[in-house]
């Protein structure tokens, strides 16, 4: 009777949890087992192993269709520092199982080269992938016939597969907070958004990252613009849109306020096109006064004026004082040469 009541209390979904828990326990055991299995792989694929003569192979990239040479050797130490270098990852988690690929003489010949290409998305990273693929950024790229970047293009970097291409091989998946990863994403974004990269470099954040400091203390592109969902800054829901910008800036600058977030992160001071638009607006003032008013209200305009003013000050100062000190210097030399210097005054 009591037992029946207890069973009544235990709802079916609890059984589900129990099963789930046991599956998790078992699968974690499996992970331990597979981690040990990595040793089998490293037996040949370790960079120090002499068992395998071949060190690289050619393959066709499943996404881009390009033929590339990839290394078959792995630097274990470097790999252990990467996002997937932890102990609970097995080689076969990403490189599909070898069961069908076993040669009769595995020891002799190794496995057949029919490993499936690495799929980041299907089993592990489906969330960011969906977020990314459905983002307006990607839609816009498709509309404009741009090549949509694959996971590896942003998350790759150095290689733990020792490739003759060294740092350019896109295999070494760095942790998101790794300064190297953060640095590489600036280049990745900047490869399309050239003007934005150039103007970012004019600003306080960009000048520090340009000197090679890309720890989480200094913002790179994705800190402000988002990672997988990248919206245009004009959209309110964007990380730098009006709904979120105070929070975004405030994540580093405590107590960021509505005036603070009006700061221009991408000053156009060195962008000739901005000056051209500005001049065009001035020229067309009679026809279209609104365009000029809009330009004047743009905070970029004052920045550009200050910049040009300073270039003028620099040029004026150094031409005038440069000439003055050079003339003074030559006049002194001339006097010394003619014996009018203080050496002859010393004598009387």
């Amino acid at each position, binding site marked *: 009777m009591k037992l029946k009541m207890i069973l009544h209390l235990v709802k079916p979904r609890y059984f589900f949890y129990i099963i789930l828990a046991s599956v998790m326990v078992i699968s974690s055991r499996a992970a331990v087992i597979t981690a040990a299995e990595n040793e089998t792989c490293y037996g040949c694929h370790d960079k120090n192993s002499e068992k395998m003569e071949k060190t690289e192979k050619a393959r066709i990239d499943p996404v881009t269709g390009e033929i590339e040479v990839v290394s078959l050797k792995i630097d274990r130490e470097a790999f252990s520092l990467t996002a997937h270098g932890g102990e609970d990852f097995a080689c076969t988690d990403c490189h599909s199982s070898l069961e069908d690929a076993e040669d009769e003489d595995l020891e002799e010949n190794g496995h057949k080269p029919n490993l499936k290409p690495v799929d980041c998305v299907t089993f592990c990273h489906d969330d960011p992938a969906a977020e990314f693929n459905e983002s307006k950024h990607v839609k816009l790229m498709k509309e404009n016939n741009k090549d949509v970047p694959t996971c590896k293009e942003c998350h790759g970097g150095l290689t733990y597969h020792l490739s003759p291409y060294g740092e350019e091989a896109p295999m070494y998946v760095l942790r998101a907070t790794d300064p190297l990863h953060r640095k590489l994403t600036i280049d990745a974004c900047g490869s399309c958004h050239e003007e934005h990269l150039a103007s970012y470099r004019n600003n306080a954040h960009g000048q520090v990252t340009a000197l090679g400091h890309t720890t989480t203390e200094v913002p790179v592109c994705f800190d402000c613009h988002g990672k997988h969902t990248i919206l245009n800054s004009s959209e309110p829901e964007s990380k730098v849109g009006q709904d979120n910008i105070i929070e975004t800036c405030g994540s580093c600058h405590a107590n960021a*306020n509505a005036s603070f977030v009006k*700061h221009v992160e991408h*000053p156009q001071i060195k962008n000739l096109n901005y000056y051209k638009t500005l001049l065009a607006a001035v020229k067309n003032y009679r026809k279209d006064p609104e365009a000029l008013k809009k330009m004047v209200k743009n*905070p970029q305009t*004052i920045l550009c004026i200050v910049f040009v003013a300073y270039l003028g000050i620099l040029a004026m100062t150094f031409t005038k004082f*440069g000439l003055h000190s050079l003339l003074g210097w030559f006049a002194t030399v001339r006097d010394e040469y003619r014996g009018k210097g203080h050496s002859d005054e010393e004598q009387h």
Partner: protein
Amino acid sequence: MKNNTNYLRFTLFHRFCHFLTIISFFGLVLTGLPLAFRGYGWARWLYELFGGYPTAGYIHRISALLTFFAGFLHFAWLFFNISIKKKKGFFWGPNSMLLQPRDIFDVIGDIKWFLGIGKRPNFDRWIYWEKFEYLSLMWGTIVMAATGLILWFPVQFTKVIPVSVASIVDVPGIALIIHRYEAILAAVFIFTIHFIHTHLLPEKMPVDECIFTGRITEAEFKHERLGEYERLKRQKQLDSYKVAPPSLFAKFLSRLVAVPLLITGLILVSLMVSALVVWAL
């Protein structure tokens, strides 16, 4: 027999202030310049030499506080002398650092001398370009301090600006541009114009030790500032400035400090000029 009479040109206080300014100025330039020239390899190297981010930034701020301290000392000294000791001659006359009518004649005389149609003018205590350097140091320090503080505390400064204004006038953005180009102006000015005017003259090479030892010989005095020399003689004050010649150790020490700094400055300015050339090409 060499005339070994020396006169005191700079008191210990002023020598100390100049030294403080040198130290803080180099601290600021060495840690700030890499940011302005971020695209060049030497900038990276220099930034790493001073600890990179954020250490170089801390050195920059400490040096800024030193500059504030030097500025405070200077204005406290002025205040003390003008308001409390009621000393005259700070705003008018030969001892004033402010521009005077006679400076116009000095400029004309100097240009004549450059062109070889006249003798070197008999300058008084402060030559017009020294006044200009002093005034631009004061002005530059105020500009750099104001913009630097805005960049140091951007959130606090923008808090007092209404949003409608902030969306047209980007105060931290303007501050950064001014801070960067005023810094380049100041650094290049000091490392070229100031160096050539004072230290790198053929007669002074490599350094004018006077700003470190405070003393100049009678011959230097008469050559550089005959106007002041004769004025003091007329006013019978000349003897009160007579001092013993600087010790060999003081001369050695001032060179030991100044020459490496001079070389550092010249290297920095040549790097900046090379950056300009690379950019222009």
